[in-house]
Structures are given as structure tokens and as C-alpha cells.
């Protein structure tokens, strides 16, 4: 498939925004990626609210329990972006052959490989890598919890004989069958109605969600989260080798995807979900970022920009502004989730400083306070304010600050969508 896709109004809105042209309104993403989605219970509540056909929602991302936002809901809330995610899910099984599963009493659909047991005493839910119930579980959801966390399966570490290959088992060349699936999914988006947001290649460099190896039966290497953080400071030589291998495989996979789908099948590509910010500070210095991460990001982005028209998307929670100049230099086009509640992330200052150079994909409403705990009026006011600030001159795609969390009141979600429509209606 190499044909050019049409450019419908939704796709155009996004293309204008990511090319820093003023679109006809603020484009919106929900469900385009694993960091811009909604909890499955929220998707179910919204389907009910909008009176859409009653059917169980698919859990398209089992780690965070994100729900698939189908076209009818996209239409109801005003989404302009469609995901192209491949079939591989977080815990190493494929997203296919759906079956019913009860999530705290809500009937949802999960993939056949989504295999769980319940802990005898604590009552938590355990999930197994590749759906293999004989393996040690790689995820756990606490009783009455809303999503999984990785189970740390760390073997004793021999720091004198660290082998970087142990940490690269997850990063493998795509098989022809996987490419076939990707091509099939891409064909479904050929009409050009939506902008296509692809998350197909694991170039998540040191993303703490992936470090424990949730998709692996028997992870080797450094898999404990704290040990990984320490490794970045104590053995950057080893981390460099891990990243280099990951990037090598990643670029090879990107090239094969590009060859199969052509250039126009994808508009935005998910590069990496590693968080560099905390609520009040960061996980490393800019100097460390520049020496340890930046060259590897630059290598991937250089390839993408040299061979495609795709825009590169980087997720980094928290107080991340100090890294933005380096990220831009590395070739990152889009930043998410723009956590305005963190230190140094004032929306006006960000827009002023990076206008025309960085696309803000997020920042639309605070999911730590306003969206889950505020009133609909507070949600509306914040959304209108953020749209006003970030939309100037394009460079903004509306999304909440990270995934919409379970227990978010439906009236607040609706207030958010209505506020975006209100903002767009004024233009």
C-alpha cells in the first residue's frame, strides 16, 4: 500500500496543528496511543452517556486497562486521531480473539491471551506474560484496583559481568506476520478521515514501564526499577549499549514498516514513553540526558526525518521543560503529556518559549485534580483557558494530561469535550 491517503477535515486539523499552521479548531486525541487514552470504565460510561450501541468495551491496552474508543464514540466526543498499534500487547500476548472478562463487575472484552488468576489472600489479580499460566506472573492489580503494575522478577545481579544483551530481549525484528497485521490495520485507515498515530516500534529508551520485562516469560538483566535508575548513574556504558541495540532494531523495524505502508499511512509516530520529570524536579540532569539519551533519540529521529514525513512523539511526565531544547535538537517534534501541574510547566511560558518549535500534545486539563475532583464548571474553564493558550499558531493537539483515570465523573469528561467544541465553535 503506497497510495496517498485523502486528507479529510479531521486529519487536516491535526496535520495543520503538527506543522504549526493554524487549524480550523483545536484537534483532539483520545485513544491514539497508550499515553493519550482513557480507562476502560470511562469509555464504558461515555458510551452509556451518549446512548451508543450497548456492547462491552475492548481493553486495547491491558497494563493501564485502556478502553478502545470506537468510531461512534470518536464521533460523539470529537476525536480527530486514530491509533495504529499493531497487535502486540504489553504483557506479550496479541490483541486478538476477544473474550468477556469482568472488571469489578463491568463486563469488558479482553484478548484471548489475557490470562489471570486471583491471589488467594490479598485478592489481587495476577496476569501472566504471553498468557502463560505456568510462568511467574508479570503484572498485578490490587484488589479493587483499576490497572496493573509490573511484578518485579529480578534475578541476582552480577555487577562485574553485566551483559547488555540481557536487557534487549524485548526488542526484536518484526515478523512478516506482524507486518501483515500492521498492513491490514493501516488499510482500515486508508480513507484519510483521521490522522494516524502509530505506536509500532519499541524505541522506549529506559521507559520504566518496560524495564521489568512484563512481556517476557523469564526476564534477565537489570529488571528492578530502582536498580535500573541506579544503573543509569553508575554504569552509563551498559545503558548506552542497551539503547544502541534497541535503536538498531527499532530503525530496522521502522524501515520495514515504511517499505510496507509507504509514507502517507502514518502521520505521527510514538518514539518513547520514558518519563524524565517528577512532580517537582527531574530524574536526571540535562547533562545526563544529553550524554545518555539524546544521541540515541537523535539517531532514530534522523532516520525518520530523512526517510518519512512522520512527526516524532515523545512522552515525558512531570517537570520536563528543562529537557525540551535538547529534545528539539534531537529531532523530537511533539511533546506529551505537558503536565502543567508540575514545577516549571506553566502553560503560557511553555507556549511562549517553544511556539513553532514543539507541538504540545496534551496539557488540556489536569488529571491529578481538575478532571477527577473538580466541578464541570471548573473543567470547562480550565479547558477553555488551555485551548486559548496552546492553540495560537497551531502546535497543539488537545488531550488530557495523560490517560483519563478510572472514577473520573462522566459529567466532567463531557464538560471537557463540550468545552473543546465551544472553543472550536468560537473560531
Amino acid at each position, binding site marked *: 500500500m503506497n497510495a496517498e491517503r485523502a486528507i479529510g477535515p479531521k486529519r487536516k486539523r491535526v496535520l495543520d496543528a503538527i506543522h504549526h499552521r493554524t487549524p480550523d479548531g483545536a484537534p483532539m486525541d483520545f485513544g491514539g496511543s497508550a499515553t493519550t487514552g482513557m480507562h476502560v470504565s470511562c469509555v464504558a460510561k461515555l458510551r452509556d452517556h451518549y446512548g451508543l450501541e450497548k456492547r462491552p468495551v475492548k481493553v486495547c491496552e491491558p497494563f493501564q486497562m485502556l478502553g478502545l474508543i470506537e468510531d461512534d464514540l470518536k464521533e460523539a466526543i470529537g476525536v480527530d486521531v486514530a491509533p495504529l498499534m499493531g497487535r502486540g500487547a504489553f504483557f506479550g500476548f496479541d490483541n486478538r480473539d476477544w473474550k468477556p472478562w469482568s472488571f469489578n463487575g463491568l463486563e469488558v472484552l479482553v484478548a484471548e491471551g489475557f490470562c489471570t488468576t486471583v491471589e488467594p489472600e490479598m485478592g489481587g489479580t495476577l496476569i501472566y506474560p504471553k498468557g502463560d499460566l505456568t510462568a511467574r506472573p508479570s503484572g498485578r492489580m490490587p484488589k*479493587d484496583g483499576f490497572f496493573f503494575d509490573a511484578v518485579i522478577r529480578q534475578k541476582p545481579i552480577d555487577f562485574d559481568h553485566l551483559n547488555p544483551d540481557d536487557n534487549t530481549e524485548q526488542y526484536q525484528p518484526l515478523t512478516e506476520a506482524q507486518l501483515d497485521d500492521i498492513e491490514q490495520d493501516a488499510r482500515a485507515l486508508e480513507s484519510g478521515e483521521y490522522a494516524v498515530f502509530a505506536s509500532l516500534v519499541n524505541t522506549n529508551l529506559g521507559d520504566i514501564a518496560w524495564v521489568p520485562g512484563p512481556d517476557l516469560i523469564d526476564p534477565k538483566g537489570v529488571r528492578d526499577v530502582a536498580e535500573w535508575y541506579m544503573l543509569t548513574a553508575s554504569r552509563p556504558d551498559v545503558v548506552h549499549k542497551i539503547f544502541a541495540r534497541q535503536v538498531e532494531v527499532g530503525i530496522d523495524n521502522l524501515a520495514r514498516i515504511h517499505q510496507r505502508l509507504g509514507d502517507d499511512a502514518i502521520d505521527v509516530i510514538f518514539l518513547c514513553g520514558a518519563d524524565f520529570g517528577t512532580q517537582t524536579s527531574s530524574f536526571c540532569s540535562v547533562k545526563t540526558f544529553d550524554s545518555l539519551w539524546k544521541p540515541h533519540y537523535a539517531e532514530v529521529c534522523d532516520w525518520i526525518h530523512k526517510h518519512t514525513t512522520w512527526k516524532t512523539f515523545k512522552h515525558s511526565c512531570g517537570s520536563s521543560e528543562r529537557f525540551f531544547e535538547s529534545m528539539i535538537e534531537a529531532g523530537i517534534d511533539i511533546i506529551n503529556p505537558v503536565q502543567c501541574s508540575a514545577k516549571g510547566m506553566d502553560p503560557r511560558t511553555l507556549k511562549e518559549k517553544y511556539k513553532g518549535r514543539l507541538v504540545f500534545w496534551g496539557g488540556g486539563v489536569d488529571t491529578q485534580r481538575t478532571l477527577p475532583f473538580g466541578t464541570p464548571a471548573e473543567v470547562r474553564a480550565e479547558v477553555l483557558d488551555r485551548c486559548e493558550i496552546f492553540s495560537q499558531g497551531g502546535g497543539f493537539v488537545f488531550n488530557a494530561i495523560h490517560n483519563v483515570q478510572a472514577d473520573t465523573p462522566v459529567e466532567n469528561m463531557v464538560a471537557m469535550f463540550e468545552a473543546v467544541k465551544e472553543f472550536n465553535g468560537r473560531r
Partner: protein
Amino acid sequence: MALSQALFDAIVDGKAQLAQSLVEAELKAGADALALVSETMIPAMDEVGKLFQEEEYFVPELLLSARAMKAGMAPLRPLLAAKGAKPAGVVVAGAVKGDLHDIGKNLVTSMLEGAGFQVIDLGADVAPEAFVAAIREHRPQIVCLSALLTVTMESMRTTIAAIKAADLRRGVKVLVGGAPLNERYAAEIGADAYGATASDAVALARRHVGLSN
């Protein structure tokens, strides 16, 4: 006894094996266990906290130093216990029910241990009744509650309520921390104080047991 510069540097630089072997060498040479802790190791962790506040150090360096401190403390613990040395205070800490994220909590407990506190670490996903039982058993001055998630913040409120219902609230100071929290929320749920960072938690704990920062 003067400061042992090599041991101080080993902790600040996060070199665990070196810190432990230097402590063993100091003890062999006749150093006093308590003096090693109070005159070299606690000041080293104070320096680490300072570097963190100044953003010279970040989470990885903090974790490395905390590990070095722990390694250095290993040969000292039995000696300090035999001497009947009292900790700066007793702390019960845990990530609240439903929350499995314990890096922040681990940093706080490591820094508190580094500051001379005895920490009873209950781990993650800790039920309110487990906090109550630990307070009854260990009689701490301070209880530290941690939550990373907006969906588990409310577990802090139920934990504090359970401590109150068990008539143990007046005997302890409750410190809370975690990304989605702030001073206002801490006050609203009835906590005594909110710490934005591990260093803040240590400063608050010290203040509550009457130590200067």
C-alpha cells in the same frame, strides 16, 4: 573522633561495597560505632540531601547513596544494638492500600534511616488495619503514608481515619507524600504535614522529634 573522609565520600558517591569495607576497616582500627554513624555517615547523607535539593543529585544518585549507607550500616547494626543506642525516632512507613508504587516511599525510608531513624517499612499496598497494627506494635512517633496515584489518594484518608478510630492518632505525627498531593489535601485528610521530596520528609521527621535540621 573526626570525620572519616573516605567513608563520607564513599556514601556521597554511592559506592556501597567501598562504604561497607571502610566501615569494617574503621571498626578494626578501633573506631566507635556510634561516632562513625553520627559524625561521618549521617553527615554524608545530609550532604546527599543537600545535593538533591540543589539539583546536583537526582533520584538515581539518591538511591545509590542510600544503598551505600545501608551497606555501611550492616556491620554497625549489631554493635549499636548491643550498646543500646537509641534511634532518632521510630517511623512506620508504607504506600497506602491499592498503591503498588514504592520508589518514593523507599527513598524516604532510606533517607530517614540515613538520618538515624528506625524505620518499620510495611511495603506497598498496605491496608489501614496493617498500619494500625504496626503502630500498636512499634509505638512510632511518626507514620509516613505514600501514594502516587489519584485513585489511591483517598486510601490515605481512610488510613488516617482508621488510626483515629483505633485511638492511636494523638500519639503519632502523620506525614504524607506523593506526586498528586499538596499541602491543602494533606490538611483536608487530617495529616500533620506534607513533604514534596524525600529531603522534606526527613526535615519534617526531625522537626517532629525535636531535632534541628
